[in-house]
């Protein structure tokens, strides 16, 4: 397909989240520099819709498909269809089953591990801790896994509750309020993402208790809250813009004829706390 400019399609699991919105911005900037066309779709956490979105993009003759899957297994059909249509497929942020050319994503297990290690240390290795879970997709599951591993290492820490805040600020707020009610001695909370953490922060502030909060993402609001010195003490930042940039780079390499590209490019994560929050941004 050498007629016309390069066409890049990207399908997001959701776009109602700054994390993915900033990915889209990075994509648009990069594409503008390349003189490429961009098509973006929002699956709204619905795999079936995501497959339809990919089908529609293939109708438009995209050359590169960046897929941020809602569900790794469910998206396989779409990956195969894209490959059959001759497109280059790179999974971003979460992996996809099927013959993807490359996968670029954060070290999610590390992220969970570091956040909870930070939390445990901030609590002096002692006290009751809860996890505010999210939508069960692989990256989130890995964060929880990493977190639990870190908490195990701290002898005096007990995990007393795990509830699902659906990564949504208003849902998380109610859930954490109830958590605080049922566990009066709660000392720390780990949220799987910053969206949920912002809700948790509101709940903690409303309760007037001294509960420490850590999270994963590095969203602007979270960084701001951390810089202010609130109960929100740390977030392990991911680099969404870089994920897209590197993902696109992998795809371009393939497009230009590269025989081998790395099957997996893990992107480092970074602890952001009161020390370095000032000045950090995606």
């Amino acid at each position, binding site marked *: 397909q050498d007629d016309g400019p390069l066409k890049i399609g990207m399908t997001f699991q959701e776009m109602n989240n700054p994390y993915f919105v900033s990915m889209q911005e990075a994509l648009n900037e990069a594409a503008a520099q390349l003189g490429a066309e961009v098509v973006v779709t929002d699956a709204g956490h619905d795999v079936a819709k995501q497959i339809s979105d990919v089908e529609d993009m293939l109708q438009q003759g995209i050359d590169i498909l960046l897929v941020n899957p809602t569900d790794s297994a469910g998206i396989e059909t779409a990956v195969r269809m894209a490959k059959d249509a001759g497109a280059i497929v790179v999974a971003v942020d979460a992996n996809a089953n099927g013959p993807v050319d490359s996968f670029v994503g954060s070290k999610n297990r590390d992220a969970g591990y570091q956040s909870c290690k930070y939390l445990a240390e901030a609590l002096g290795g002692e006290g009751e801790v809860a996890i505010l879970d999210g939508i069960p997709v692989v990256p989130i599951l890995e964060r929880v896994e990493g977190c639990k591993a870190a908490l195990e290492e701290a002898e005096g820490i007990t995990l007393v509750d795990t509830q699902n805040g659906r990564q949504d600020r208003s849902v998380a707020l109610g859930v954490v309020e109830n958590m605080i009610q049922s566990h009066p001695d709660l000392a720390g909370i780990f949220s799987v993402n910053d969206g949920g953490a912002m809700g948790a922060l509101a709940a903690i502030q409303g309760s007037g208790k001294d509960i420490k909060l850590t999270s994963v993402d590095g969203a602007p*609001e979270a960084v701001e809250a951390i810089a202010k010195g609130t109960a929100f003490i740390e977030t392990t930042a991911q680099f969404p813009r870089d994920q897209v940039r590197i993902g696109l780079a992998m795809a371009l390499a393939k497009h230009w004829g590269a025989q081998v590209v790395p099957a997996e490019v893990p992107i480092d994560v970074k602890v952001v706390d009161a020390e370095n929050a000032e000045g950090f941004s995606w």
Partner: protein
Amino acid sequence: MSHESSPEAPPSAWQSILGGLKHSPLILPLVGLIAVSTVMAFASDNFFSVDNIVNVLRQQSIIGILAIGMTFVILTGGIDLSVGAVMALCGTLGAGVMVNMGMPGVAGLLAMIVVGVLFGVFNGVLVAWGQMPAIIVTLATMLIARGFGLVYSGGYPISGVPGWVSWFGVGRIAGVPVPIIIMVLLYAAAWVLLQRTSFGRHVYAIGGNETAANLSGVNTKRVKLYVFMISGFTSAMAAIVLTGRLMSGQPGAGVAFELDAIAMVVLGGAAISGGRGLIIGTLIGAVLLGIINNGLNLMGINPYLQDVIKGFIILLAIYIGREWR
């Protein structure tokens, strides 16, 4: 509605609240409330603390406020699926006015009310003058409101609202959280509107028999417009509390809140076909649903299972209340 006993004196407010309770449509929601509370109290130690009761009320305040407008609409025989999306839109645009446009916070709050009421006008005009079924109109306007909010904010939450706005979400007056006070005041106002003004009579009349109400000289179109405006207004009030609680405009907030609001109204004893129901019932329904959510959380029930249990409780409540409606 009221089933007072005395044939001579006009039934007083007290009578309709307490005296007539035996024959009142409120009896079942109340029994449900007591039953569920008792179960929860046994199942969880923390349930019956003042703190927790306040907690439940505060959590329910947002959807509880939405349920006020929903009650008006349902009493006329309509339904408003757009409440959650309109709330999100109000919150987002209001925060936008404060943050992006740099106007004072008060302007932002006013903007929320204006947006909510205008959206109510939009719904109301389409239903009343466009003569389209409310369920379809508000299904479409739900999409529109949600999409608008997201387009405006680009999907980002809008943070940076002035600090004092948080008073609406977390402030207290004489120890009582402000959201609860707002909710209770709105319920009181709704009670007066429904039970003590001719507008309220007309709301019930339209739900009971729209043609007959029209023949009796009730301006049914205008009343329908007003109920949707009220629903838009309560969506805006919910948005104010939400903004105070989240300190930001959240374009994605309130998904499926309309379903909870509908559940509150019917748990409170109102007929989904209109014409019958009390606003106090909705308040009881709101508390009941809150207690169920809170209690299941306190008991540490798997959140997925909570939905199943909630579904069965709603079915049970409606089944038992069936004949009373």
